[in-house]
């Protein structure tokens, strides 16, 4: 509650500084000989506003971390706290109850012992709130006054504001990078723990997957942690079956849309295709599990294959392929459309037909872009979870028969993390190792795809 007030205060002060600085810059402009000053008044305004808002925000951030500690320290120092239990759960519970009542989020205490602490809490909260507001005001006035005194007719406010904006943009982009790094670090940490219990060789090259979360965590059976069937299932479903569906269909629809479809038709088909990309994967999962998988099993029975499973790699792969079509087709569409019109004209002027032009000139020229699109699609497919969870089954079969159930890395990550094993059991930790492998593979694919796209861009410059 208190940080919210401080935030509003910061923005209000910033607005005041903005208006004051702008008014002052206008007077410079009016008084100057030729009506020109080094920067437009609005930049002076932003300069002062930034100098007020940024320090205040930093202070508010810091204050919201340290104020609760200062409050509880002062409460513990009060005489009413002397008869609290020295340690443990009960002490924490009493303190937190008293705090809730004092700040108004709870009506009454449950534990009588907390009653005596409510008053000290209330006093401490109002004291530190007052300190926070005062400090905010002082910081805002000091920083604002300093900035306000710096603005002069020849002050280069614009370049400074631009620098500040650039810094903000940089920080925004760093958030994503730092998050990625954080993910890698946490994965690596847990993966190392896992490999301390199970040998990486067993994990990477073993062919039996069946971790038992109920087994003794101190002596895991390495032979039950062979991830090859998972890698195989992932590749077979995501990179083989799904791509057999997605590449031809995506490519053909891209060719049709860029080369043959008239503009009106294109205007309707392209968004319709993109709707496919917006369908939640869990809906695809239903579709795969409830419609496609039984249909495949029935079809297999009809042709005399009696051992077809009701959950099959084929069902998951087919549906995943359909899901991926928009990725392939939109990347292919972009890269075919990026081939210069001059190429197309040159080929047509040689007497080539449209289809010869597409096959011999456009597709080869667009190939790097298409390949990159396919790689991004593969990395998307092998990271896909919901469809395989619902339709591919849980059995870790190492087989080439698409009618059998298979399992994938993503499925097993879900199964291990939601299983009944404790968090330090190797079966649970294996999820991190699987995630790490998956992350490295998709990272590698994306990296290669970006390199390929980059080379392709240079080809026409």
């Amino acid at each position, binding site marked *: 509650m208190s940080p919210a007030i401080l935030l509003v205060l910061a923005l209000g002060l910033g607005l005041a500084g903005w208006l004051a600085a702008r008014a002052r810059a206008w007077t410079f402009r009016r008084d100057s000989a030729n009506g020109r000053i080094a920067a437009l008044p609005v930049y002076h305004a932003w300069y002062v506003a930034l100098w007020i808002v940024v320090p205040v925000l930093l202070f508010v951030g810091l204050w919201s971390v340290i104020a609760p500690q200062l409050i509880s320290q002062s409460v513990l120092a009060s005489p009413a706290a002397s008869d609290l239990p020295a340690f443990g759960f009960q002490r924490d519970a009493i303190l937190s109850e008293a705090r809730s009542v004092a700040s108004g989020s709870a009506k009454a205490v449950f534990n009588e012992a907390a009653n005596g602490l409510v008053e000290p809490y209330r006093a401490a909260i109002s004291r530190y709130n007052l300190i926070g507001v005062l400090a905010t005001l002082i910081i805002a006035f000091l920083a604002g006054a300093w900035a306000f005194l710096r603005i002069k007719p020849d002050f280069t406010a614009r370049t400074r504001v631009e620098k500040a904006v650039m810094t903000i943009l940089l920080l925004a982009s760093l958030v994503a990078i730092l998050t990625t790094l954080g993910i890698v670090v946490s994965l690596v940490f847990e993966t190392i723990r896992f490999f301390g219990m199970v040998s990486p060789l067993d994990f990477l090259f073993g062919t039996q997957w069946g971790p038992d979360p109920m087994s003794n965590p101190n002596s895991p059976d390495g032979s039950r942690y062979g991830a090859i069937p998972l890698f195989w299932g992932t590749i077979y479903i995501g990179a083989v079956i799904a791509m057999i569906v997605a590449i031809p269909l995506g490519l053909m629809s891209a060719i049709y849309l860029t080369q043959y479809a008239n503009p009106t038709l294109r205007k309707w088909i392209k968004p319709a295709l993109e709707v496919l990309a917006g369908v939640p994967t869990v809906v695809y999962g239903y579709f795969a599990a409830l419609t496609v998988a039984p249909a495949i099993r029935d079809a297999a029975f009809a042709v005399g294959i009696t051992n077809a499973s009701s959950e099959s790699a084929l069902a998951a792969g087919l549906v995943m392929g359909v899901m991926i079509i928009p990725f392939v087709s939109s990347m292919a569409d972009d890269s075919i459309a990026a081939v210069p019109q001059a*190429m197309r*004209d040159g*080929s*047509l*002027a*040689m007497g*080539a037909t449209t289809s010869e032009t597409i096959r011999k000139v456009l597709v*080869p020229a667009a190939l790097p872009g298409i390949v990159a699109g396919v790689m991004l699609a593969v990395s998307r497919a092998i990271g896909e979870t919901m469809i395989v969870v619902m339709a591919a089954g849980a059995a870790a079969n190492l087989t080439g028969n698409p009618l059998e159930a298979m399992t994938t890395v993503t499925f097993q990550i879900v199964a291990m993390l939601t299983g009944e094993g404790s968090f330090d059991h190797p079966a649970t930790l294996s999820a991190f190792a699987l995630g790490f492998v998956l992350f490295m593979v998709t990272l590698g694919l994306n990296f290669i795809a970006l390199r390929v796209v980059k080379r392709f861009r240079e*080809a026409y410059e």
Partner: protein
Amino acid sequence: MVTVVHPNLEDTNAKMSARDVSVFYGDKKAIDDVSIDIPTKYVTAFIGPSGCGKSTFLRTLNRMNDTIPSARVEGEITLDGEDIYRSKMDVVQLRARVGMVFQKPNPFPKSIYDNVAYGPKIHGLVGSKSEIDEVVEKSLRRAGLWMEVKDRLEDSGTALSGGQQQRLCIARAIAVDPEVILMDEPCSALDPIATAKIEELIDELSGRYAIVIVTHSMQQAARVSQRTAFFHLGKMVEYGRTSDIFTNPLEKRTQDYITGRYG
């Protein structure tokens, strides 16, 4: 207003003839009632200020305007007496007989060899590897590029210099043995030395093909062509021997243009 045709234009064999040709882009009339005979074994130059319709007219001669959905052609254009806009006309065959070189060199992102072999292959003019080799060498020789590229036929066509790329495009066009070659400002993206080479090449090729060249440069028209047509605002103003057009124009607008008063 009708086109002024110089009276002393001797009767040569017309390879292509246009009669009352108008071209529309949607409702806009880009070419208005143009009639012209393109003689064989000569170079015919189309000159005129930007936007006068000379490139548009050039593109009607091998039906490249077909690729623009809103374009519509009226009138009659014949190649050896056959109407090229009749419904039975095969555009693929037409473009094999009437080749085209564009303003900006546009080699395919393939090897030099494959660029030249492209046309002969799609038209089924060649069978064995040795036949293709022969056509490639002959075309590159005629385009004056053979000596420069014979040791690197497998390099990408896009790796050549601008002038070499344009000669490669000419080699590609002549590889299918066309009867007419249309050139749409073939030197406008090239430096003077490369331009001189292309002009020399046009001169050599003119004995063998009917060449039509659109150019912005009046000096170029004067240097390479035997016939010149002056276009202005979608109309063909004047047509005659190049020497006559440049020394003795009959129309005031032609005179103004070639003396540099506008354009």
